[in-house]
């Protein structure tokens, strides 16, 4: 059975190589038969990798421990669910999984009818298969998940304890999907460069693919944060860990891309910038995968250090340099159709937004790589932890919240100062009121927090005004009632109004983040049976926690659970009993501290058990009050909904054939 899987991988590799040759030859010599053959070969790659995945799942489910990978990530105790998910539980399997997901996207692209952009498709195929060859090459050579042991072990090692959580099961596939889907806009951009196209056709046709990639990447980040909060037990959602950052950095570059394509579509500007951004995004995706897989930077996520590191580096180098060479060679073609008319225009604000995003991306990249860079260049390893990232990126993030409010106020090209002032009056008033009233009447007094909340209020006002203007206009023009006017408005321009919904999601999440960053309190106390300790925050009042006992309960197979019971009183009244526990994975000798929470509105009391005396008479607990934390998760949901609205097949896209045709005038094919 394993040999079938391996053979399928090898065939996929051969087909991918053939597809590149056939596609390029077919395009150069104008031979449709060769192009068709390349297309079929590409689809063959998808099919072969699907076979390999099916074989791997079969081996995992039937406990074929002679397969080294199966023995590594499962054991007899594992449930079916975790057997299936073990596919991405460790390095080799996850590389195969990554390649397969990518091939699903290439397959989907090829099955789509492309009409106007048909000329690009052979090059798109070539680029996609080039990337695929690398990943398939890895699983065929140095990271073969079908490698066999010389004996048949009685049992396997089992999955890394950290991964036994639903969030950890969903998080990797979602994140990987986000990663691999960026191959679509990247491949189209490269194909457009190859064929000397100067229009924005590549961008328009892949718009929804890009949004979907971005959606998955965003969801992957959110799920990762939620998992950290639920399982890692340090009271937070984001640890600025190298691998978290590896997923955040591409997002930080893809987000300005999503914004600056709008400038190109509307004004024919920033062509070079957009091509540059998508190359950078995809290079960072591959680099992020490299960071996760190679173990060059220590992290809770890191899989074992291995030989694939240098190969990865080499590939990233080749890919990046080749993309850049191609990019620079088409520099002149990508000149702007228009120039900036005014500093006070949407274009200018978008440029500033791009700068902020790239600034944050660069800072995070730099901080993440600083341990390696300092070790290589300065001789000693300097670790850069969360305080650095917070201080260096916090103000920039706050600035982005403000820009998010300014941009919608600005029309394209320019705005007269009179009109700008009129537009700004209401939102600025709201923002200033918030800045004055918050410290007077609430517990929010720290400068950074007050300022950020003022920005949030300003931007929320602007965004609401945007909806209101549209709805009111429809109400007056078409006589629609406000509700259907709202529905129609969003329907008519889903990207715009979906985008505003995303902005609301960001604003809600910002509230939660400010609450956590500025006002989280924590305490650690040792208590004997019946003893209490208290924790208080101006946001929630005082909690008294009484230690009621410690018990050992059987957990999942191979896991010993030690549960601490605490009675929670809030301002003197008993409100809840919570049971934080520690899981101990016997085989791996690894503990996990799982928190329990008591919710109070949008805030949460979050408690973990930190240790105990062997007799069970006393234990130490760590308690946190996380003010406004649930705004973060709520914001995340709104964010995802907004992206779905924006990505949904909109009337705008349906109309595309007409506008695409009219735009062909700007496309030059040499």
């Amino acid at each position: 059975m394993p040999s079938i899987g391996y053979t399928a991988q090898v065939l996929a590799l051969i087909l991918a190589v053939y597809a590149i040759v056939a596609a390029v030859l077919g395009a150069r010599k104008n031979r449709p038969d060769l192009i068709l053959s390349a297309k079929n070969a590409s689809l063959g790659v998808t099919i072969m990798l699907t076979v390999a995945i099916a074989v791997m799942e079969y081996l995992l489910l039937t406990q074929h421990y002679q397969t080294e990978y199966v023995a590594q990530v499962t054991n007899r105790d594992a449930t079916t669910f975790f057997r299936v998910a073990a596919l991405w539980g460790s390095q080799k399997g996850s590389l195969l999984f990554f390649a397969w997901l990518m091939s699903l996207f290439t397959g989907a692209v090829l099955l789509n009818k492309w009409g106007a952009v048909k000329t690009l498709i052979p090059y798109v195929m070539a680029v996609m298969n080039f990337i695929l060859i690398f990943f398939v090459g890895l699983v065929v050579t140095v990271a073969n998940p079908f490698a066999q042991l010389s004996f048949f072990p009685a049992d396997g090692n089992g999955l890394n304890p950290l991964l036994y959580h639903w969030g950890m099961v969903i998080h990797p596939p979602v994140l990987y999907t986000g990663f691999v889907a960026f191959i679509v806009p990247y491949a189209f951009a490269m194909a457009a460069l190859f064929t000397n196209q100067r229009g924005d056709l590549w961008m328009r046709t892949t718009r929804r693919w890009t949004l979907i990639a971005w959606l998955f990447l965003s969801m992957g980040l959110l799920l990762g944060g939620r998992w950290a909060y639920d399982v890692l037990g340090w009271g937070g959602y984001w640890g600025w860990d190298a691998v978290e950052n590896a997923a955040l950095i591409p997002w930080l570059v893809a987000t300005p891309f999503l914004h600056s394509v709008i400038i190109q579509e509307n004004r024919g500007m920033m062509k070079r910038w957009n091509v540059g951004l998508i190359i950078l995004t995809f290079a960072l995706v591959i680099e992020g995968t490299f960071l996760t897989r190679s173990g060059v930077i220590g992290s809770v996520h890191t899989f074992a250090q291995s030989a694939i590191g240098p190969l990865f580096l080499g590939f990233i180098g080749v890919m990046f340099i080749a993309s850049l060479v191609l990019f620079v060679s088409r520099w002149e073609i990508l000149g702007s159709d228009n120039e900036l008319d005014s500093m006070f225009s949407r274009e200018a604000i978008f440029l500033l937004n791009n700068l902020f995003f790239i600034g944050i991306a660069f800072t995070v990249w730099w901080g993440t790589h600083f341990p390696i860079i300092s070790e290589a260049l300065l001789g000693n390893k300097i670790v850069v932890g969360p305080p650095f990232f917070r201080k260096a990126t916090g103000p920039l993030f706050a600035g982005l919240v403000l820009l998010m409010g300014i941009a919608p106020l600005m029309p394209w090209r320019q705005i007269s100062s009179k009109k700008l002032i009129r537009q700004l009056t209401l939102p600025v008033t709201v923002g200033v009121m918030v800045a004055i009233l918050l410290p007077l009447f609430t517990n929010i007094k720290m400068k950074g927090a007050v300022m950020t909340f003022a920005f949030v209020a300003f931007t929320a006002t602007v965004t609401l005004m945007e909806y209101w203007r549209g709805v009111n206009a429809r109400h007056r023009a078409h006589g629609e009632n406000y509700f259907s006017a709202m529905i129609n408005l969003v329907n008519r321009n889903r990207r715009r109004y979906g985008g505003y919904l995303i902005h609301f999601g960001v604003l809600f999440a910002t509230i939660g983040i400010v609450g956590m960053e500025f006002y989280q309190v924590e305490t650690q106390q040792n208590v004997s049976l019946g003893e209490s300790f208290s924790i208080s925050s101006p946001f929630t009042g005082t909690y008294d926690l009484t230690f009621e006992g410690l018990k050992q309960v059987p957990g999942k197979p191979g896991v010993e659970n030690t549960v601490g019971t605490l009675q929670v009183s809030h301002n003197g009244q008993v409100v809840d009993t919570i049971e934080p526990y520690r899981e101990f994975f016997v085989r791996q000798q690894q503990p996990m501290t799982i928190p329990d929470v008591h919710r109070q509105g949008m805030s949460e009391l979050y408690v973990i058990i930190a240790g105990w005396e062997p007799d069970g008479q006393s234990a130490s607990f760590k308690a946190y009050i996380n003010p406004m934390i649930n705004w973060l998760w709520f914001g995340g949901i709104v964010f995802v909904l907004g992206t779905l609205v924006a990505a949904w097949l909109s009337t705008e896209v349906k109309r595309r054939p007409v506008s695409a045709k009219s735009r062909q005038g700007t496309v030059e094919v040499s």
Partner: protein
Amino acid sequence: MKKYFIPFIFSLAAIMVMLAALPVLAQDPSMDEVNHVARKLNCPTCQSLNLEDCRTQTCDQWRGQIKDLLAEGYTEQEVLDWFIARFGVEVLQEPPRQGRGLFAWLLPIVGLLAGVSWLAFVLRRWSAAKPAEAAAATALPEDAIDDETLRKIEEDLKGF
């Protein structure tokens, strides 16, 4: 009586201060005080976690060390220095703002400044190009037509 009043108040205050200070001197540092310092250090084994949040045995011992040092009367900075002396600056969560650690802080700032000046350059070049046309555009009566309508018209026109 009156002349004893001030010395009396002073000695009372002194006693209160001493009483308040006594438990601090006698007691072990609290876990929160230990955590407060541990938060600024790296876990020696798992790298990405700080010493406060890590639950491994090594980290437990390190926190014990912090506790001992604090009990001996070390200040927070002295404890940090103690760790730096033994394990180098890489034990710190936040790179020092001097020497080699400064590079970590400087480059993002330099990068951002470069970005800002690039932006300023681009904006100047672009906006200097066409003052005349800009003036012509401003001459349009304001609000003659709103953005949304204009966009729709333009879009519909594309079909022809």
